[in-house]
């Protein structure tokens, strides 16, 4: 699929995100490129296109092929890819973001936030909730983007590609309507729901 657009992100003059372009890329390419960030260089083939996320995926049977639309995305800056994410529908009403990776030298520039906003914007409004699993160290960041920890969900263990080590992750959710409402309320509200790029 082509998203049919190359979206300039951000409006602040001079910001890196102003020169960002977003592309859907082939899954094989996507996982080869994110594997080093996952410490899975030697096990690229183990990066599956979909993961269930502890019961997130509501589709089953042939729906897994026919109805789930997996969109691997990358952000390019001046022709070089510097960030990746992927997004897919877990039901007819909700989405999952899987992996948000920004090269270390480009972090804290709004790149990830812009890429995520673009990924979500690709989907119709009826997909009203967006889920992700956040490492505990990133919870504050995603809160600033408008995500909240799903009520009743606690941090849980998670195997990573880092020598089979474990990290704690927790499920977070973004309500698109609430985020939009906050955005419409004005720039001052972005502190509460700043997932939309200014």
């Amino acid at each position, binding site marked *: 699929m082509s998203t049919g657009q190359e979206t300039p992100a951000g409006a602040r003059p001079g910001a890196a995100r102003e020169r960002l372009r977003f592309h859907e890329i082939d899954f094989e390419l996507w996982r080869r490129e994110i594997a080093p960030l996952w410490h899975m260089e030697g096990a690229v083939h183990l990066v599956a296109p979909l993961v269930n996320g502890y019961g997130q995926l*509501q589709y089953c049977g042939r729906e*897994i092929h026919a*109805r789930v639309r997996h969109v691997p995305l990358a952000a390019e800056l001046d022709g070089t890819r510097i960030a990746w994410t992927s997004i897919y529908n877990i039901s*007819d009403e909700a989405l999952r973001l899987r992996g948000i990776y920004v090269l270390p030298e480009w972090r804290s520039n709004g790149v990830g936030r812009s890429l995520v906003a673009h990924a979500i914007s690709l989907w119709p409004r009826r997909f009203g909730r967006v889920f992700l699993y956040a490492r505990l160290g990133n919870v504050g960041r995603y809160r600033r983007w408008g995500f909240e920890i799903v009520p009743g969900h606690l941090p849980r263990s998670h195997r990573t590609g880092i020598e089979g080590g474990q990290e704690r992750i927790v499920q977070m959710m973004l309500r698109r309507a609430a985020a939009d409402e906050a955005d419409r309320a004005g720039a001052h509200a972005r502190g509460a729901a700043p997932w939309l790029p200014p």
Partner: protein
Amino acid sequence: MSAATLPAALPPPEPAGRAPAFLFGFDGEAFASRRSPAQRYWTEYAPASRAHRGFAAEFALALVDLAGRLGRMEIAWAGGPVGLAAAALAPRLGLPARVLSLSIDGGGPPTPMTGLPARRIEARFEELEGFALGLARAAGCGNAWAALSAFAASHAQWPVLADHGEVRLLNHGIDERLGIVAAPASLALVDNEGFTALDRWLRAERRPGEAQLLRWTPELVAAQLDSPANRGWAAAALAGGAPALRAWTNHAARGAMWRRAFPGLRHAEPRAAWPDPAFRARMQRLSLRMRRARPGCATQHFTPLHRLLPRLGLEVPPGLDEDARLYGRVGVSPTTGAGEPGSSRTGEEAP
């Protein structure tokens, strides 16, 4: 068996001539084999057409139906409950069958005394090992116990009933490593890709037989899910707290279900019939080698129970569809055809 990967398109199943109650596939192809690690593995259950009659009765009905299609059958017993129950029922039901039992390096469970003719295969572990690694590479299987069932089936001289399969349930809300209830209950039926490796192998080898007797009819699947043991498991999982922690999977419930249906059945899973610690350790190492022989084929498919139960004509317990409330609903059932994402009531298009 060739060590090469099986062809994507496998021959039709034997016995043929019936609508399958259980399907598996990769991406858009049903009853196929994996061509790429990026393919999505799925399983699907046909809807029930009548109320089930209980596990024991549905198991017997399925066995009679299968035997009628196979003509005569060899029950390849690897120590599991499927083969043992089938071997116990066959003479009572007048089915033309015999038992094939397995001994590895002189060990293994004795041939069950069921009144059926029996023959025993004596094999060395190295033979099992060679077969298992070939199965892993060709059909995608990282489980040595599944390979043991397949190994037994590979020695059959008649159409074979493999001693294989289980209906495994799981509560996603449990973090078993931390030993905590990490989220509200989210119950699903788990199908590991390796569970159907034997199906792929049978087809590729053009061997008449069946590896999924427990999934032979929708009513048999329904009877297992609706058994008192599994209902009790679901109630414990939904209760939260300590009961839920003890009910991460339905492992204990599966055993209770078998024992209730077939009193006297000693082993609810094949590995229980092979108690030798040295043998078990070798099997554990073999599983690891199998996974390494073909990595990327260890995927799982989860069918949310709140979607499966109504399909099988079963009541959904209160609280079971909480994850649907959170994660959203699916508007089109698997049987009514696959719509494209975005072809919704709103007319909006997905990306």
